C-alpha cells in the first residue's frame, strides 16, 4: 500500500497528473471509487481483493476528465478495458497514466499502453471458476431448460440500466435503448422487451467485453448478466482466437474476418 500511496502522491505533487482514480473504503466497509486530487488525501487509497470495480468506466466521463490528466489504479480487468478503449480510439496512448496492480500487492507503473499489452501476456485471463461453472451448468441444460432459466432471470429485470452504466465499454452517448425514432428497444420492463435489451447489449459487446463482471454485480436484482457477455467472449476466443483488451492492434473481432471462418452451420 505504501508504494501505491507514494506513487500516487508523487504524481499529484509533480503536477503530472491532476486526479488519481482509485479505491477507498466507504463508511459501511464497502470499497468505492474515489477521485483524489490532493496529495495529502492519497493515504486513503487502498488495494485489496475487494477492489474489483472496473474503474475504466470513469475514463470517458467529462466530469472526471475536466480535472485534467488522470491516473487510474487498474486491476487486470481495468487494464484490459484501457487497451480496448485505446483500440476503439476512445483514449490515446499517453493521455492517461495507468498504475496496475496484481494479486500479492504487486504494483506496476506503466509508461505506456504497450507495456500493459506486454504485461497482460503473462497473466492468466481465464474466467473465474464460479463464472465458468455457471456457464457449464447452463450449457448442460436442454433448450427448454435454458429458455426457462433466462426467462425466469429476465422476469426480474426492471430496466434500471445499472448494467449498461457500470460497463466501461457501454460509452455510446446515444445508446440504442434511448432511441425512440424508431423505438427498437422498449422502455417498459415486460419480459419480451427485457430479453431483447439483454440480447442486444450482449451482442454489442461481442469481442469487446473484458469479463470484469461489473454488469452482473451492479444488477439490483442479481441477474447473472455477466454470464451472457462472458459466454460470447469465450466464443469469440474459441472461434477467432481473440480476447478483448489484450492488444492495441485495431482489429475488432466482428469487423474483421478470415477466409476460412467456419461455416458448417450454413447450408
Amino acid at each position, binding site marked *: 500500500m505504501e508504494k501505491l500511496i507514494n506513487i500516487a502522491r508523487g504524481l499529484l505533487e509533480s503536477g503530472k497528473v491532476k486526479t488519481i482514480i482509485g479505491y477507498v473504503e466507504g463508511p459501511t466497509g464497502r470499497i468505492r471509487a474515489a477521485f483524489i486530487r490532493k496529495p495529502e488525501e492519497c493515504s486513503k487509497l487502498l488495494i485489496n481483493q475487494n477492489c474489483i470495480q472496473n474503474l475504466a468506466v470513469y475514463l470517458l466521463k467529462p466530469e472526471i476528465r475536466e480535472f485534467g490528466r488522470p491516473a487510474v489504479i487498474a486491476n487486470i480487468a481495468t487494464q484490459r478495458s484501457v487497451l480496448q478503449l485505446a483500440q476503439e480510439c476512445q483514449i490515446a496512448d499517453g493521455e492517461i497514466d495507468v498504475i496496475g496492480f496484481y494479486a500479492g500487492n504487486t504494483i506496476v507503473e506503466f509508461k505506456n499502453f504497450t507495456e500493459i499489452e506486454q504485461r497482460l501476456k503473462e497473466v492468466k485471463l481465464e474466467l473465474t471458476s464460479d463464472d465458468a461453472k455457471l456457464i457449464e451448468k447452463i450449457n448442460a*441444460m436442454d433448450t427448454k431448460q*435454458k429458455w426457462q432459466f433466462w*426467462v425466469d432471470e429476465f*422476469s426480474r429485470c426492471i430496466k434500471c440500466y445499472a448494467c449498461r452504466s457500470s460497463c466501461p465499454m457501454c460509452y455510446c452517448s446515444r445508446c440504442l435503448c434511448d432511441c425512440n425514432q424508431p423505438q427498437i428497444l422498449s422502455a417498459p420492463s415486460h419480459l419480451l422487451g427485457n430479453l431483447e435489451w439483454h*440480447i442486444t447489449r450482449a*451482442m454489442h459487446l461481442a469481442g469487446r467485453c473484458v469479463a470484469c463482471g461489473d454488469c452482473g454485480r451492479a444488477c439490483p436484482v442479481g441477474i447473472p448478466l455477466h454470464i451472457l457477455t462472458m459466454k460470447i467472449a469465450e466464443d469469440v476466443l474459441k472461434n477467432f482466437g481473440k480476447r478483448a483488451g489484450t492488444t492495441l492492434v485495431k482489429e475488432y473481432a466482428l469487423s474483421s*474476418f478470415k477466409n476460412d471462418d467456419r461455416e458448417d*452451420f450454413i*447450408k
Partner: protein
Amino acid sequence: MSDFEPKIIAFVCNWCTYTGADLTGTSRIKYASNVRILRFPCTGRIDFMYIVKAFAQGADGVIVSGCHPGDCHYTSGNFHARRRWIVFKSFMDFLGIETERVHFAWVSAAEGAKWAETVNSVNQKIRELGPYKSFKNLVNVGVS
C-alpha cells in the same frame, strides 16, 4: 396439426438470394408460399435482432441467406455476416432459442432450384416442429 401454416420470414440479400428467388419464379419452379421475403442490400446489413424480432412478432421459422463467400456484391459483407452468425447462433443456443428454426444458407443468383429446395425443406422442418410457442407465450408477460 394439419391446420398449422408456418409463418416463415426470410432475410435475404438483393444481389444473390433475392435474384435467385426471382429465377425460381421465372423457371416456374413451384415451392411453398408461406415465406415472406425481406430484401436487404447485403447479408452484412442483416442485424441479428431481426431474427429475434421476427420470432417475437410471431414467426415460426427464419431463413437468412446471401451470396457465397467470395461473391459478395460489396466484396466482404457476407464475411462479416458469417462472423456475426457464428457468434449469434452460439448465443441463441445458450439462451435456449430453438436454432433448428433458424436456417442459414448461401444461395446465389443462379441457384433458383436451391432456393426452392431451401424454402421447402425449412417449411417441412417447421411443420414438424410446430408453432414457436416459447416466444408467443411471452407476449404481455410482465405487464401489470
